[in-house]
């Protein structure tokens, strides 16, 4: 499992590009991999769950998520400057945080896991 995490960390950084548009308070995720089995890269709800679980985004944060399945580009737009600053901070290290969390949980350290504020409906 450890080696899979290491591969995932590298692949995330290589294939999922993150760009910031500060002027429009927008984060772009560009999915460049070809591995996913369906043409749909995800729904806006799934993207938000990802941000909550792996980035620690508050569920109440107001974000508008647009998924373009043709261009494989996801736009995450916030209206409030403070929330954009927080989102930008999350996105600047989200892939490392994601894999760090998997690695922690894999060795039985649930300290960070238990802070996740997301429940399945």
């Amino acid at each position, binding site marked *: 499992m450890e080696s899979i995490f290491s591969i995932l960390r590298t692949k995330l950084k290589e294939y999922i590009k993150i760009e910031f548009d500060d002027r429009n308070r927008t984060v772009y995720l560009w999915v460049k991999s070809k*591995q*996913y*089995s*369906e043409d*749909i890269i995800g729904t806006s709800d799934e993207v938000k769950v990802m941000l909550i679980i792996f980035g620690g985004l508050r569920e109440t944060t107001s974000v508008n998520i647009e998924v373009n399945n043709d261009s494989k580009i996801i736009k995450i737009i916030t209206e409030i400057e403070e929330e954009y600053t927080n989102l930008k901070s999350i996105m600047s290290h989200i892939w490392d945080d994601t894999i760090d969390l*998997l690695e922690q949980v894999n060795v039985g350290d649930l300290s960070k*896991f238990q802070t996740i504020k997301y429940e*399945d409906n």
Partner: protein
Amino acid sequence: MNEKSDDEINPFLELSKESIKMINDSYERIIFDEYITMRDGVKIAVTVSLPKLGEQQIKMPTFLSQTRYWRAMNLRLPFRWLINEMPLATVVNEIYNSYGYATVSVDVRGTGASFGTRNFPFTREEVQDGNELLNWIISQPWSNGMVCSSGGSYLGTAAEYLTTHNNPALKSIVLGHCSWDAFLDGAAPGGCFNYTFMQMWSLSGKLQDQNNPKMFKQNLPLFWLLIDGVKPVNSKSDPNLLQEAIKEHLNNQYVYELTKDLNFRDDKLPDGNPVDYISTFYHKQEIEESKVPILSWSSWLDSGYGDVVIHRFLNLDNPQIGILGDWNHGATIPSNQFFPNRKEVNPALEELLKTWLHFFHQCINNKQPNKKVLYYYTMVEEKWKKTEIWPPEGHTYSRWFFTDNNTLEQVPPQTPNGSDTYKVDFFASTGKNNRWWTLMGFKVLYGDRAVKDKKLLTYTSEPFKQDVEITGNPIISINLSTTHQDGVIYAYLEDINPEGIVTYITDGHMRFIHRKISHEPPLYKTMVPYHSYKRKDALPVIPHKIMEIKMGLFGTSVVIKKGHRIRIALAGHDRETFTKYPSSGKPVITVYRNSTNSSYIDIPIIKKKSHK
């Protein structure tokens, strides 16, 4: 029969010794999902994983697994952007595909992404689907017409049911950690309702059937981080199919509700069939008629599923190999109680999978076993043994009587009045890492039972003067009376080392109303006294009247080292696992241990051949 010394026996090495050629390194794996429409229009979801070499489509044998726990997982973002199946599934499918075998995973009707509903597990419809799926597989352009059905737990039972169709395409089955007698192996061992497991299993099933992964958050957090539900089929062409399937599952029924008032083996299921209908022993004749070779494996420590391997060995004529180890349910975590700190399970998953693959390979190449062989692991000695008969050669019983001062002795009591009273402690518990909780995948860890034994009535032997191998089912006979009209006796067999550490070996229990030893032909051959658990055989419990409770403990294989002692610990409840009997009151049990009413345990030991 052993041609090899014990040191050389290892089932996983012996069964995998033949070299099987892997396919070309440059093969590509094709994974696709599909709905197969059954005879009644119900759509069943399948995931197929195939090796492909360039444009050439080779015909290959197939491993079929039918599950109620999601055939494939929908990965959460961002993982779905990078990989198209769970890492564990990748390991399994890659190994099989790399040797030129296809895999087909199925959500049984009423579960996962499949349509339909289910009233209980292994309904007639579900079992019939298995045969249709077999026929679908062999009609595919990539199939060579040969199928092995394999899997652990639910998947294992589904594989065993597949033999009942006598479909010539089914060449072998590999069954891990699954039931034989649904009533005694899991739902109501000893006639006591296993409410914790039945409740947890029902709840987790209900959540899974509604595509909700929340039960993983507490039990399998890594799993929860990676997946958010079952993998849909055709999600782009019709994104609502999964939601439609889930809607049909709302009509499912779950075993806890159906069985919580279960008291007798002959109580009925909703369709009017007896509970035994969902036990594979009930279909013994069809299984034998198929002549399908069986590889059956489990653990001494797993619920009643250790004895299942022995029951198959004793009762089915099919060529078969049985393996009994020292793991948790599913063989994912080491669970040898004498080495509680072991981290690595042996064998590793890859080694297990290669063993199953070799078995199938032999079966499709006319090298299937033509007899029955059982491998079993002897704990403390830490060696595999191999036998073609059960019980093994040298098997005999050593009788130990309950005697004065809470001792166990091999001499029968001489005094006419000996007895001990025990006020049932309803807080007594084996905890949440016992042989029943492991059915949810947990480690088996009873720990040092010295403190827990203080709540119980115990009888302890003198230190052994030499090493003694215990292999088989101990049989305990207790003369007792109680102050109430219902009750249970739990008996734990333990090892005590010279430092005083008390280690669980095995246990058994029986609700008093089921104590009658039936003289009818048993439902199947077993190594313990036969109790029918039928309503007609229930005996009333008359307060203060002496009754004999004679019952088997679960099978084990362990060496008691020289200087160690054995202990029998008796309880009246196991709080975190079983229903309480009686439901109210504070019963006091009197155990008789005198010349008129003795109590004793027959311990199955293996006498070594003397070397001349």
